[in-house]
């Protein structure tokens, strides 16, 4: 994991290399997003025989493929841009397969994201798989980006650092979607041939599995040595709207800079827009893997120890500055209704 300062040095170092490519993608407006890379450091087990677990996230986005402003928002799932120059199906795969997403970047709804299921050149529309937030106005700026996939992050032939094998010996990428871990690995032996697979489906190519920018990833490694995976892309700018569901969400720091519990905006004093405060048993919780279990934090509004961020077991100790580092993943345990975590941009400025 890079410190913010060293990260920015890295960004500066390779910006010149990547900017031309970014510009060639942009059809209407050249993007100015900073580009660079972050490194996911993945622990080995040191020969213990036990899996070593690393909770991490990508911390970068793909370069912008298109950006402009909406001409109108027709219906809840259609974005219209009459000036668009895109081709049919430019931002979706065959049969409506999701390959790209739209991010609204200005006005109400800024930071919300939507998968693209259809792209029409003649109608100048993008059809989205989720309804647009109701307050998004005509003229809102938007960006279209390719999704990360297992293959684009870890290598189509698993050449970026993880170990292949079978379902029990390969390094694993675990995503927490739809209420459970989904386990992916690079299969080199066993039934079903060679390639990225999801456990339980050894014959099905899983290389195009989408990894969302706000996904937390759990890497389970059975190899002795540490490894790392470098993620090259664009730095996320602007605020980000991250859905937090009831129950558990495994999320990541989407920015290429650290934040803290206090600066994260996870607690807003309004349980409709942020985590619910309370005591150690009633408040919503933020959980960080510590190597053997989870360190649990919550926003204390009652009980001994005053008001503020606390770690369970230490109600008198201010935890406001507990870090959410670059590449960090965190579980959120939410007891109430879902809400969107509006994470402010980190760093606040790139100047």
């Amino acid at each position, binding site marked *: 994991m890079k410190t913010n300062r060293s990260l920015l040095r890295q960004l500066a170092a390779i910006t010149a290399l990547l900017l031309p490519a970014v510009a060639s993608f942009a059809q209407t407006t050249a993007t100015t997003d900073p580009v660079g890379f972050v490194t996911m450091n993945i622990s080995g087990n040191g020969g213990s025989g036990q899996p070593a677990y690393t909770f991490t996230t990508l911390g970068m986005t793909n370069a912008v493929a298109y950006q402009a402003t909406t001409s109108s928002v027709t219906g809840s799932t259609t974005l219209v841009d009459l000036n668009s120059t895109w081709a049919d199906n430019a931002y979706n795969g065959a049969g409506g397969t999701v390959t790209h997403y739209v991010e609204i970047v200005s006005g109400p709804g800024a930071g919300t994201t939507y998968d693209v299921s259809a792209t029409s050149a003649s109608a100048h529309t993008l059809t989205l798989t989720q309804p647009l937030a109701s307050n998004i106005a005509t003229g809102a700026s938007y960006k279209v980006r390719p999704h990360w996939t297992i293959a684009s992050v870890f290598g189509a032939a698993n050449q970026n650092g993880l170990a292949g094998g*079978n379902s029990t010996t390969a390094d694993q990428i*675990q995503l927490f979607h739809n209420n459970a*871990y989904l386990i992916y690995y690079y299969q080199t032996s066993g*039934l079903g041939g060679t390639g990225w697979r999801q456990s339980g489906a050894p014959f099905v190519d899983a290389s195009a599995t989408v990894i969302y920018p706000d996904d937390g990833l759990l890497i*389970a490694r059975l190899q002795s040595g540490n490894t790392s995976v470098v993620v090259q892309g664009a730095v996320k700018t602007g605020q980000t709207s991250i859905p937090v569901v*009831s*129950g558990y969400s495994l999320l990541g720091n989407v920015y290429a800079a650290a934040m803290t519990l206090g600066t994260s905006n996870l607690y807003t004093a309004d349980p409709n827009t942020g985590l619910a405060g309370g005591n150690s048993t009633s408040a919503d919780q933020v959980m960080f893997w510590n190597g053997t279990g989870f360190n649990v934090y919550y926003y204390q509004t009652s009980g001994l120890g005053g008001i503020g961020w606390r770690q369970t077991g230490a109600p008198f100790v201010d935890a406001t500055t507990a870090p959410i580092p670059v590449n960090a993943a965190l579980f959120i345990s939410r007891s109430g209704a879902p809400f969107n975590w509006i994470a402010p941009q980190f760093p606040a400025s790139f100047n």
Partner: protein
Amino acid sequence: MKILPVIVICVANVTACHAASVSWGAAIDTGIIDTSGAALATQNVVRIGYFGTFTNQQVQANALTPSGITALNSDWHQFAQSTIGTNTFSPGSFSESSSPLYSSLPGFTPSSQIYFWALKSSDPVNNPLTTVTQTAIGYVPFANLPAWRFPASDVSPGVSIDISQLSNANSVLLAGTYISASSSSLNPIFGTANHAVQLANVSAVPEPSSFAIGVITALAAVGSRNRRRK
């Protein structure tokens, strides 16, 4: 906004909106064969779980009779069930990913040892237990292979196991046998360098008390016939 479907599910049941995950299978190089050496037919049942109170010795003692199977089943805490052929489309193999809700498994203790239980039944679809004819039960102690332990909590990392790991020197087969040599019936599925877990016969044996009554009755009948002959 990719998790909108999750939101819908979670609103319906907040406490059950997450689950422990176990991926399990016979999909690497080790298949399941019956006592004749044939690859176990599709639709036969495989299960993972643990026994609540039975010791290994008690499991072993009960595994090979129908009444014993019934007794074992009453002590069985099941995490998931699947069938031969699932996701591999071939006999003798399967691949499954199971994420039941712990809250939907009353009495289930997280972090328990994972046991694997395979059944060959004459009616595997409707009555896999009451028509069982062959079985295998085994596990690898989690002290030797940590993956053979159910996740500690709903958010603990998922685990992946395969019956090929029953080749581990510390593995325990309470019924059935691990066959290192290649089985020809598995060649079309796994290639020639395969291994197998072979089921053992489940056969009805008389209860000791009824057996004794039968012997006494038979002896009495023989004695009576002998007396009449005299």
